[in-house]
């Protein structure tokens, strides 16, 4: 189970945030989110406070999972891009680096063409960052300040969480 954990360290979060920031700016989007395929938000940029980000992440992951299964049912490997068009706001969803979901929310200040173009460029950058992360993870536990603090969790710590 341990090998499946997703661990994000500060330097990687900053790198991911940098790419998101540039993407949001270049695509004129309202907000951009990077979400793990299991529905956890990894990073975001833009009018994030306008949205219930936890729900957004979970529903997006559910949507992608369902669409992935649909693709397989008709013999496709995946549908790599999803687009939902609203009256004012639109959502562009794409898979990056095979394990993450890039969600772009945009309105009339942008266009689908522009978003697609900028997403493509950002996706290549995300690929690189995730590649680095994978290499780091396969190199074994990180030494120094990032050493896992969880080995020191005591029974009291756990009980304290449930002390209500």
């Amino acid at each position, binding site marked *: 189970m341990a090998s499946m954990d997703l661990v994000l360290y500060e330097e990687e979060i900053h790198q991911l945030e940098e790419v998101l920031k540039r993407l949001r700016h270049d695509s004129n989007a309202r907000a951009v989110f990077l979400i793990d395929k299991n529905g956890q938000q990894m990073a975001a940029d833009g009018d994030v406070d306008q949205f219930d980000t936890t*729900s957004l992440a979970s*529903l997006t992951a559910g949507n992608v999972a369902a669409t992935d299964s649909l693709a397989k049912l008709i013999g496709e490997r995946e549908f790599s891009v999803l687009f939902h068009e609203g009256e004012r706001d639109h959502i562009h969803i794409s898979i990056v680096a095979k394990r993450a979901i890039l969600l772009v929310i945009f309105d009339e200040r942008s266009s689908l063409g522009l978003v697609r173009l900028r997403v493509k460029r950002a996706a290549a950058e995300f690929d690189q960052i995730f590649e680095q992360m994978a290499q780091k993870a396969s190199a074994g536990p990180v030494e120094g300040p990032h050493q896992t603090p969880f080995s020191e969790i005591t029974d009291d710590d756990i009980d304290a969480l449930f002390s209500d």
Partner: protein
Amino acid sequence: MTFINYAAKEINCKIVYYGPGLGGKTTNLQYIYSKTSPDAKGKMISLATETDRTLFFDFLPLDLGTIRGFTTRFHLYTVPGQVFYDASRKLILKGADGVIFVADSQEERMESNIESIRNLETNLKQHGLDLKSLPYALQFNKRDLPNAMPVDELYRVLNYKREPTFEAVAPQGNGVFDTLKSVAKQILVELRKR
């Protein structure tokens, strides 16, 4: 799959409520939602049919407080219990850190309970997960109904690996938090071992 974010100092874990249709999985979540203070929970989402049967999943994010400086967050999901929604059930199980099986205590639901546990085992395997090693608790729900089977008998048939077992009446909340706490603790203990 626990998600540890060192930058935001957060641990996020996923718990899935599994079990046969109409067993009370959604009711467990609704009770937890109703009894949790607003600052410790997010919005509860139910993707349900017009007749309130779970269509895809229910979702409830819960914030349990901090542990060693890390905000500990649990994402609770239910699966649709009806047999023909198996494709959706499989999707929800992906990345689960722990599972709660909500069994229906009524005698006539016994076959459905057994079938659902087998289905759980099969679907977990497809995600490379093993029920034998996964944090897991068994809840005997609907203990208040007159046709509820004796607990001993339910345990004999449904117990999988001597997992912690709880009697519950979900609409009233009996056993609901005890079951959740049991699996949450098992997940954190697992985290410590890594």
